[in-house]
Every structure is written in C-alpha cells, then in structure tokens.
C-alpha cells in the first residue's frame, strides 16, 4: 500500500534529480571514457605512425611527435626486401591454420559432451580440462622439447602445431560448450526420437545449428596460435621456420634497434588479427561468459 503511494513520488524525484545530475555525471563518464580510449589507442597509434617515419626521423630526438614530416613506405618495403617477412607470414598462417582446424574439430566433440551428456565423473573431467590452464608452460616446455628432439620434430611445423593444442583445446572446448548449451534441447530430442543416433544428431542437427559458434571458435584459436611466442622461439632455430612473432623479435639488432622496421612488422602482423577479431568479438564475449557468469 505504502509502495503505491511512494512510487510515483520517487519516480518524479529521480526524474527531477536526473535533470540536474545527468549532465554532470555523463560529462565525467565521457571524460573518463576519453582517457580510457587514449590509454588503449595511444601505444598502438604511436607505433602505427612510427611505421611511416623514416629511420632517420625516428632516431632524431626532436621528432617524437605525432606529426610525420616525410611519410614513407620505406619500412614496409624493407620488411619484405631485407627480411623474409612473407615467409614468416606464411609460417604463422600455416601453423595457426592447422592448429585451429584440428583443435576446433577435437573440441567440438568434447564441448558437446560437456554441454549435453551426463556421465559419472563429468565434473571431474571438465575440471581436468580447466586444470590445464594452471599448468605452467615452463613445466611442460622442457619435456616437450626433449620429446621433439628425440622424434626429430624440432624445426618443423609439427612441433608447434602439436604444442599449441595445449592451450587451444581447453579454450575451444570451453567456448564451444557455451555455444552448444544455447541450442534448444528439444531439437536434439526430436532427432533422437526420429531414430537418429548420437553421432547423427551431432553432425546433422547440432553442428549446422552452431555454425556461427564453430566459425568464431576457429578464428579465436587461429588468433591465439598466431599470437604465440615462447613455443615458437624455443622449438625452432632455423630462420625459414620463424613465425611472425619470433621473426619480428629477431629483427632487433644487437646494438641498434631499427624501430621503423619493427613498427612496420608489428602493424603488418597485428592488423589482420584485428580485422578477423572485429568480425567475431561478439561471439567471444558470448561464449566466454556463457558458462562463467550464469554458473
């Protein structure tokens, strides 16, 4: 009863309050937002602009401005002329591509199992998959190195592709589990009543329905593998097998760092990722938080 009397009054009060408070509050919000944007964009913008400056201009103390006096593509040209940058690009694409396809396929089954099936020890097994995130890379990289040495897989794509599953599979499984849980259960039940086996239901109903999720997972695991550095730098020593991250790291000279060249390298290897990411970032947020927040 009292609620009914107070409610309109508070509504009016808040409306009045809003008229006064909203602008000041929103000014603060936009001010902070501008600060956040600057903090995020500035390092990359600096690098991006630097990639169009000549090395001479970069070395000059006074040229530390956002203004480019003589914009040049020299750095980008040198990247492909003086270094085997195209090769690094190809290596990264091959390794990340194969990793993504393999990890997504394997994880599709695992994610479906965790999303739909019930069986003894399920929570333990899903915990085990999460547990791989807690295992330090440093504890596994040494044995893996020794095995690859023994199998003569060092300095091959295989070493990287195999090792990358260590982080790609848990990530993809978790993401896909979230996507599969969003499919209405009734469709699968109907398929099973119609006599489709579990595998048939999975291939004919579940996978087609979660195609966007599958593509998103494929792209994310591709991005993750593309970003990797430590396995790549440890398992390869030949220049022609360097991935982008390793290749760019190797461009740093002993004494002089050619910043223009490095900047161009970082831009070329990050921009494709950003483009891919822009397409699928909505799915990532949805998939990552599907299980985590709802519990």
């Amino acid at each position: 009863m009292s609620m009914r009397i107070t409610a309109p009054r508070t509504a009016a009060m808040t409306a009045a309050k809003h008229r006064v408070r909203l602008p000041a509050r929103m000014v603060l919000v936009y001010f902070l937002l501008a600060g956040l944007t600057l903090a995020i964009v500035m390092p990359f913008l600096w690098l991006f602009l630097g990639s169009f400056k000549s090395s001479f201009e970069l070395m000059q103390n006074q040229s530390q401005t956002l203004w480019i006096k003589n914009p040049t593509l020299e750095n980008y040209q040198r990247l492909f002329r003086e270094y085997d940058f195209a090769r690094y690009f190809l290596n990264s694409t091959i390794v990340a591509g194969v990793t993504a396809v393999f990890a997504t396929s394997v994880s599709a089954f695992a994610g479906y199992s965790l999303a739909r099936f019930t069986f003894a020890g399920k929570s333990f097994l899903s915990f085990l998959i999460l547990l791989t995130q807690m295992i330090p890379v440093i504890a596994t990289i040494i044995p893996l190195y020794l095995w690859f040495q023994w199998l003569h897989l060092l300095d091959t794509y295989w070493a990287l592709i195999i090792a990358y599953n260590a982080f790609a599979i848990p990530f993809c499984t978790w993401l896909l589990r979230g996507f599969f849980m969003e499919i209405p259960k009734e469709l699968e039940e109907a398929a099973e009543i119609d006599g489709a086996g579990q595998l048939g239901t999975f291939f004919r109903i579940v996978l087609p329905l979660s195609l966007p999720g599958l593509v998103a997972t494929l792209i994310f695991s591709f991005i993750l593998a593309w970003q990797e550095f430590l396995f790549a730098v440890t398992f390869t020593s030949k220049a022609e097998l360097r991935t982008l991250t390793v290749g760019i790291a190797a461009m740093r000279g002993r004494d002089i760092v050619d910043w223009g060249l490095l900047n161009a390298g970082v831009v070329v290897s990050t921009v494709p990722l950003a483009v891919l990411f822009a397409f699928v970032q909505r799915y990532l947020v949805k998939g990552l938080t599907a299980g985590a927040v709802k519990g």
Partner: protein
Amino acid sequence: MSATMTARAPARRPMLDRRTLKRWMAGYLFLLPAMICLAVVSFVPMFQGIVTSFENFSLFRPGQRGFVGLDQYRYLAEDPLLARTFWQSWYFALGSVALQAILGMASALLLNQNIWFRGFFRGLVLIPWVVPGALAAMMFGLLFTSTGLVNTLLADLGLVDLGLINAAHPWLSDPRTSMPTIIMANTWKGFPFFTVMFLAALQSIPKDYYEAAMIDGASNWQSFRHITLPSMAPTILITTLLGTIWTFNSIDLIYILTSGGPYYSTMTLAMFSYNQGFGRGNIGYASAIGVVILALMAIITIVYLAAYRRVER
C-alpha cells in the same frame, strides 16, 4: 540449474538401464580425443618434468644423465636467486592483476553506462587483447626508451623541469623502474579480459536491485558496495585466479623486454627456469624450478577454490 538436476537424476536410480549406459558411453567417447591430446601435450609432460627434476641432465651433454635424488632441490634451496625470483614473481603477478582488475572494473562500469557508440567502445577496449604479447612487449619497449614517447610526454608535463625525473630516464634498464614498467605493459595487454568478464557479470545483475536501493535512498557508492560487488564476487574471484596464474607463468613480455635483467630485477621464477633450461642447458635444475612453480599454482588454486565455494554460498 536444470542441467545439474537432470545430471544427478539418473545416478540416483538403483540400476543403470541400457539407455543411460549408452549415453554415458557416448559422453566418454565424445570427450576422448580431446583428453588424449591434452594428456600428450599437458599432463604427461608435466609428470615427465617432475621426474626430470630428480635427474642431473644437461642439454649440451645429452649422454650423461643420471638420477640424483633431491640434489637439484638442495642446490635450489641454497640459490640466493630462488628467494629473490619468488618474491619478484609475486610482485609481477599480483601487481599486474591488481591493476588489471581495477582498470577492468572501471572500464566495465563505464561501458555499462548508457553512452553514445557503446558497441564501438566495447570493441575498442578489446584492442590490446588482439595484439600478440611479444609484439605488445616490443611496442612498450619503444614507448619507454630514453627518447621514447613516455619521456617526451613527461617532459612536456614539466616533470623534468621540476627535477622529479631524469630527462632521458631509461625505464627498462634502471633496476628501480624496470619491474614497474613491465607491470604497466602487462596491465595494458591483460586488462580487456577483466573488462569483458566484469561487463558480462554487471549485465546479469537484475535492474530491480538498483531501483529498490534507490528508493531506499542508497548512494551510488552504497549500491556499488552492497549490490554490485557481492553479485560479481564469483566472477571477480575466478577472473583474478586465472589472471594470477597466467601472469605468474607468463614469460613473453619479460623475455622480450629485459630477459630478467637488469641485475635480475625483473627475473621471475618462470624466466629463471627458462634461462636455466634453455640458456644454460641445466634441464634438471630448470625442471626443479618448474616443480616449485607447479606446487605454487596448486596451492593458489586450492585457496581460490575454497574462497569460491564460500562466495558461491
């Protein structure tokens, strides 16, 4: 909720009928390929690493390899670098995660407001996430050189004239500022993950709670303290747990920026182990350090899980 209910129902039945058993089998079989892969690339190497830590084994002299019991651990206990890297690892991990969580919370609260171009800003905040860690490291290396943007900006702000800092302060090669600089770079790279998780948690809090609080005359801070924070507690815990573990184990950034130097000022346990193993070839010793890290991770996980159970209830 309903998933867990149905999950438990068949188990309570006295006898497993054939259909249930078939579904169990299907569940296992679907999980099998992933489990085999993870065993090969994660679990078996982990145990192999523990075994290697009891051996004397040099990468450069592969022929001589022998069981030495706890010798590696004895050397490690006497190594003055152990205590130093132990504390520096915590400094690095907790410093980064604290900043990431604060920044993540602030940006999540901002992006949860009714702002113009909200979708655009929510995408923008993810940029650091896309930049590969090793390349982000190089980017920050550029910003923090003695003639880099940071020094230029600080000079423009007049800090140099005030005598607060050196005009050409080499942030990464001064042992006093090397670790804070690395933490700053790591914060930039890592905070979007916190933003994403926190934003999702924020959006799942029912709006009525805030309306009720407002009617009761609660201030913004009180609403945040008594509604937002408790509702987000599970997410905050899980995110900080993962963040702490990832940061504690991460090497990329330090490898690229300082490799643990100058004067060991940025040497963490993980970097220490890597240097011993692949720099000096002391595989046994490096594995022993790895086991120490593994034990620490186990302890952190157990403590966090206990905390999580309490928060969940």
